[in-house]
């Protein structure tokens, strides 16, 4: 198997370069994932740097750009990947080293949408009731793993990472707008009513296209816009 991997170590390299690798992915390559290959490569060259943890697509650590498309290495089967497999860090974010990018801005935007339940009623001694239908509204929203595949595939986020919230944060904003237990809808909408924060989304749909959890941030954004219009009367 042939790969071309983006390398950059600010300690030793003046500028980034692409390095060629070749490896025999082994007998069970039929079910092997790209992360298995990266780990095998790291066993040969321990300087190759990437984040990883759960290896099963729930922690969101190993997002990267794989043959031009953002995805998780641990859930990308190697079978059928066109070679050489070109691996780059997530686009548009400062590179710390090799495939590791600085996600500070991404996390800042997440925090900025106040991603927690706001309810002003006295705290009941039992759970706040919610019908199965109301709960179903959260499906496709709460499952986000904050891997950043969507936001770093979004041209609007590339241009305005400081002012446009990006699809991941907006998906979270909608997760709370859609929650029957949350009482801050008005304030949440107010906070997004701005030419950049929400409305820099131009429905390019890269977010939905790349989401490794098959979520649909574009639809969530459309629903926020819809609520805003409805509110304006």
């Amino acid at each position, binding site marked *: 198997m042939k790969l071309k991997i983006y390398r950059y170590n600010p300690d030793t390299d003046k500028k980034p370069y692409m390095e060629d690798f070749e490896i025999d992915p082994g007998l069970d390559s039929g079910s092997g994932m790209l992360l298995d290959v990266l780990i095998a490569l790291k066993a040969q*060259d321990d300087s190759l740097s990437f984040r990883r943890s759960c290896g099963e697509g729930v922690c969101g*650590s190993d997002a990267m750009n794989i043959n031009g498309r953002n995805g998780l290495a641990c859930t990308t089967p190697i079978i059928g990947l066109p070679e050489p497999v070109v691996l780059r860090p997530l686009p548009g974010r400062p590179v710390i*080293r090799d495939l590791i990018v600085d996600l500070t801005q991404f996390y800042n935007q997440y925090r900025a949408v106040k991603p927690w339940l706001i309810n002003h009623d006295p705290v009941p001694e039992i759970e706040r009731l919610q019908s199965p239908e109301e709960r179903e509204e959260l499906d496709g929203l709460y499952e986000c793993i904050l891997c950043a595949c969507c936001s770093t595939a979004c041209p609007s986020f590339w241009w305005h990472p400081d002012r446009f919230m990006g699809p991941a944060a907006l998906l979270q904003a909608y997760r709370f707008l859609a929650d029957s237990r949350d009482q801050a809808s008005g304030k949440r909408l107010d906070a997004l009513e701005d030419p950049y924060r929400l409305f820099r989304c131009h429905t390019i749909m890269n977010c939905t296209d790349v989401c490794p959890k098959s979520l649909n941030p574009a639809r969530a954004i459309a629903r926020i816009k819809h609520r805003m219009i409805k509110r304006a009367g």
Partner: protein
Amino acid sequence: MKLPHRRFDCLVIGAGGGGLRAALQLAQADLHVAVVTKVFPTRSHTVAAQGGMNAALGNVTPDNWHWHMYDTVKGSDYLGDQDAIEYMCRAASRQVIELEHYGVPFTRLEDGHIYQRAFGGQSQNFGGDQASRTCAAADRTGHAILHALYQQNIRAKTHFFDEYFAVDLIRNEEGAALGAVVIEIETGEVMVIEAKTTLLATGGAGRIFRTSTNAMINTGDGMAMALRAGIPLEDMEFVQFHPTGIAGKGMLISEGVRGEGGYLVNGDGERFMERYAPHAKDLASRDVVSRAIAIEVREGRGCGENKDHVLLKVDHLGPDVIKKRLPAIREMAIRFGGVDPIESPIPVYPTAHYTMGGIPTNRYGQVVAPVGHGAEEEVVGLYAAGECACVSVHGANRLGGNSLLDIVVFGRAAGNHIIAYLKENRYHRPLANESVDMAVARLSKWERRGDGESVSAMLAELQLTMEEYCGVFRSQEVLDEGVSKVLALGERLDEARLSDHSKVFNTAFMEALELENLIDVATATVVSAAARTESRGAHSRLDYPDRNDAEWMRHSLYCKTDHQLDYKPVRTKPLTVDTFPPKKRVY
């Protein structure tokens, strides 16, 4: 060398459910709390918990905390401490409801209450009918809880040190904990975090085994830090093998699958659990089901070409139940098992899953060790919670659904005790510089250059050794060989070399530090296992097939110095109710 210093009221090491629940309690009390975590908080392994969290809400079947307590004591094979178990089971309902108020999107029943599913080892009325006690957010309960706890911590303005690696605890001559030496992974900069109290919440050590449901970060860092600081580890021989990891891969297939009605079949198409547990069948506790699968395979009744696994049948539940209640499991089975459970059964085999043992604590989360005269003296300023700790509520075998409960209950309890402690202990103690120097010296060892053994090769060897010599079935001869092999690996650590010596985000260096931790924890595990000459819970000895309460109803304490073992009695007296005396364990 002058290192940068930071000072906090409390330092929490680890940002899984235990660490975050404690941090939230502290931040809400207006204390200065720092959370040090080697990965961004929502990447902690709590995120991978699937099935749910036990609490006797009684939303689906009649229930009360006392029945839950009975099941937990029985599940622990009578090694669990009954005071801590009573405390946990009593606290459970309130804790689940609190999580719901924090925003956790629990699945709902028609009447709007939290959905609860059946899980292994659960009964009504002290061993009667199956109970449904596990509160679930589909099959992503850990993800839902971890994200909600992180979100609440952002709201409470907890101070996070994301992607900082904790190296060693700082202790003074009297043994008080004063904080930790940490590395900022991005820059390689070493820093001292001084704290009046330190909480270890670093999770388990499933990565001492080759096939494991655990994330790569589960390297027992806090346990090894405790060992190096002179604190023993309790009951490390008890490692849970989850019955249903995807065969050959290890990814977890939740017990919730059997809770929803899935069952296991062997190569003859037989529903074999009926033979091993006539009453509970596939929902017997995990140690029982794992052993049954291993026996079926060993006796030639496995499935597949190599007859090396069994099958978990789910398709009879129908696509609706599978899609609604087990969506992530379906995704996982398709991706890693190559089967869609709506159509075909999932190939499964027991897989290393959970560390029952850990840093000894009392039910307030205080670390207790035989430091002077008693077996359970508190270590001043040091706390532990969650999988890295041993309270012990799980004893020799943890019940499914009790680990999310453990982290929330004891994370909160530790937080509360820290708040009380800080009212009486308002000032930082003087820093112990020798302790800092020792940690820095340990780090600088890895600057050595030249040829040597590779970290990844040594890790692979350790994991294979543990799997072969300390697995589901154990015997003296095999364990003794395991001990000498793991000790030899430890000796060879000095020969290991890194070729990457960069300061910037050096993951090779972090993996080397993790290897040191894994070897310490693996040694504790195999040494403790070789000494326990009985079968209890997850520790199953072919040469000692029976439980031996007269000699062995006691906790092991492993010390790093000379690999010594010590023992302490099980706390059989609950807080208010009568003791559950040991009985023969049948499901």
